[in-house]
């Protein structure tokens, strides 16, 4: 009934005593997520909200609480270090919420994440939620409903908008995953699409893309070849002005300008249901689930 996060998730919160970390830890606990530990260097030995033990290091948290999943709310310049620490401590799913992480830091930490066999989601993402079971990150729990539609998105609040549309119309979600919009992210569309395809409790998929890059086109190709479940897609930024581009390398590397039109064409070619606006998700999903 879910991907990545489920009832066996044992969560450690990195940066649990910070402003965002403490706020969202309370929300995650309130939602029923099994938050087993927090980490803030120098605050080891404290207790968060009277029940979650705080450690100096992720390694200590793993050793003493069996944490297997981590969520990161630390400042941007410390985020890659926090990812490395989690991977090094044997955490298998690392979710980095932090926005503003230098991309060069991500190039250095990604090989370590892969070597350790961990999955990273983010950075600069809202995290993920398996409605009714657990949420890891900042997606508001109250807008979600347990069900059988999987959602994957590059955006944060746009994800909420669409989840909210589904829920208000009685369409529940298996798992909602925000993969983040940064140039280098740990988990991409294809990773999540493959997981949804393999998940026996997901019947249909919503994919929310944006202009820029070629990830959506590659995902559409993957869907055409490997995904048999119905997919509904949206591209944000149809009216956005083209960026003022400098240098030739970007155009050479992608061979594409990453416009909304290109992406929508790729979606159509792969048989997606095309959402013209967020609210269209309801009708399209209902129609495709009937078939």
């Amino acid at each position, binding site marked *: 009934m879910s991907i990545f996060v489920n009832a066996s998730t044992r969560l450690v919160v990195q940066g649990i005593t910070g402003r*965002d970390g403490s706020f*969202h830890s309370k929300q995650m606990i309130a939602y029923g997520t099994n938050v087993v530990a927090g980490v803030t260097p120098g605050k080891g030995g404290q207790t968060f909200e009277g029940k979650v033990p705080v450690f100096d290091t992720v390694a200590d948290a793993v050793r003493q609480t069996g944490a297997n999943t981590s969520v990161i709310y630390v400042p*941007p*310049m410390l985020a890659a270090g926090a990812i490395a620490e989690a991977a090094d401590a044997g955490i298998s799913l690392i979710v980095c*919420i932090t926005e*503003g*992480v*230098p*991309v*060069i830091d*991500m*190039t*250095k930490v*990604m*090989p370590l994440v892969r070597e350790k066999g961990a999955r990273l989601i983010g950075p600069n993402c*809202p995290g993920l939620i398996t409605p009714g079971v657990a949420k890891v990150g*900042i*997606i*508001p729990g109250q*807008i979600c409903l347990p069900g059988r539609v999987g959602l994957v*998105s*590059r*955006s*944060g*609040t*746009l*994800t*909420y*908008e669409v989840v*909210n549309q589904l829920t208000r119309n009685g369409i529940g979600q298996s798992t909602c995953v925000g993969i983040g*919009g940064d*140039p*280098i992210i740990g988990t991409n569309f294809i990773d999540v699409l493959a997981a949804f395809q393999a998940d026996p409790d997901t019947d249909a998929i919503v994919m*929310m893309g*944006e*202009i820029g*890059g*070629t*990830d959506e086109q590659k995902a559409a190709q993957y869907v055409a070849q490997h995904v048999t479940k119905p997919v509904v897609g*949206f591209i*944000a*930024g*149809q*009216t*956005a*002005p083209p960026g*003022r*581009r*400098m*240098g*030739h*390398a*970007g*155009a*050479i*590397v992608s*061979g594409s300008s990453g416009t909304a039109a290109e992406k929508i064409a790729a979606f159509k070619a792969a048989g997606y249901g095309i959402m013209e*606006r*967020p*609210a269209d998700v309801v009708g399209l999903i209902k129609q495709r689930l009937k078939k």
Partner: protein
Amino acid sequence: MNLHEYQARELLKAAGVPMFDGGVASTPAEAEAIAARLGGTVVVKAQVHAGGRGKAGGVKLAKTPAETREHASRILGMTIKGLVVQKVLVVPAAEIASESYVGLIMDRESQRPLFMVSPAGGIDIEEVAAKTPEKIHRLAVDPRYGLLGHQALGLALKLYQNFDQVKVAAKIMDQLYRVFVANGASLAEINPLATTPEGKVIALDAKISIDDNELDRRPDLAALRDETAEAPSEVEARRANLTFIKLEGNVGCVVNGAGLAMATMDLVKYYGGEPANFLDIGGSSNPEKVVNALKIITADPAVKVILFNIFGGITRTDDVANGIVTATRQFKVEVPIVIRLTGTNEQEAVKILQGVGMKALNDMDEAVKQAVALAKEAK
């Protein structure tokens, strides 16, 4: 953040990349003095964050200091793709035997810095890439090992036959890679990497973009930002930690999150309106940001209505509501405001707005429709 050519040159020169000596001028007199110091024919190049400078008349040859002054006075103040030229670079004009292309970009797919080099460089490199992709050679560098010696040599061998030139080019690859990594660049490009008739390898033009996320820990790089080269409203927005891009429409948009902001603009258009801007107040809550956002938007006389679209997650909708209330107390907002709020602390937000007689909508489509209708009425 894009660097000007003269700034990129300085970074590369400090790393040892062979380049001509030159100078940057803000006035025709300064340009003339530089030309006099350099001697011989020079090139006067507009320093502006836009491609196609040459075609726009922003790059000129000058045979004498007096001619340099003339060209500089014409180029300084010129507008290229909406940007006013504030500075010119003056460098010796080189006779060129060959032009290669060397680019390094942060590649999303390999998640590594990616070299692209071609012996067919110059201004038509994109055409080369499109028509004869086999002339573009690529190499993704594993950041754990850095650019290895044989990799630099392998790239250089794609550009030159003469082994002395190969050795210089290999060193330049290494220098370019170091500059890229040390400064958190997203792009670093030398085009053309030229050879002179005597066989000297030299970088004639350079472009570097720095990852915006790098700037917080690198005040030295942040200081390279040239705010005179940007629209004042965008400068103000950045100072307030907002992402703002001015557009041509009349529906001012205040949204949290880039994706939702774009989707809101798309929906304005869908319902027949025209967005006046892209404005993302970002993820973290802060009433002050909302005040600044309203200041920036209301400064645009074209704006006929302001549309808030806030979906609370990490952003608390009550913070946004407080920001709207504070702003309307600080200054008079002359145009109608349509507010859509939902998510984190929504009930508190609605109460705060009701307290000052403002109404909050819950549905995005409804809010956009109202805003578009109000904008049309105002015309």
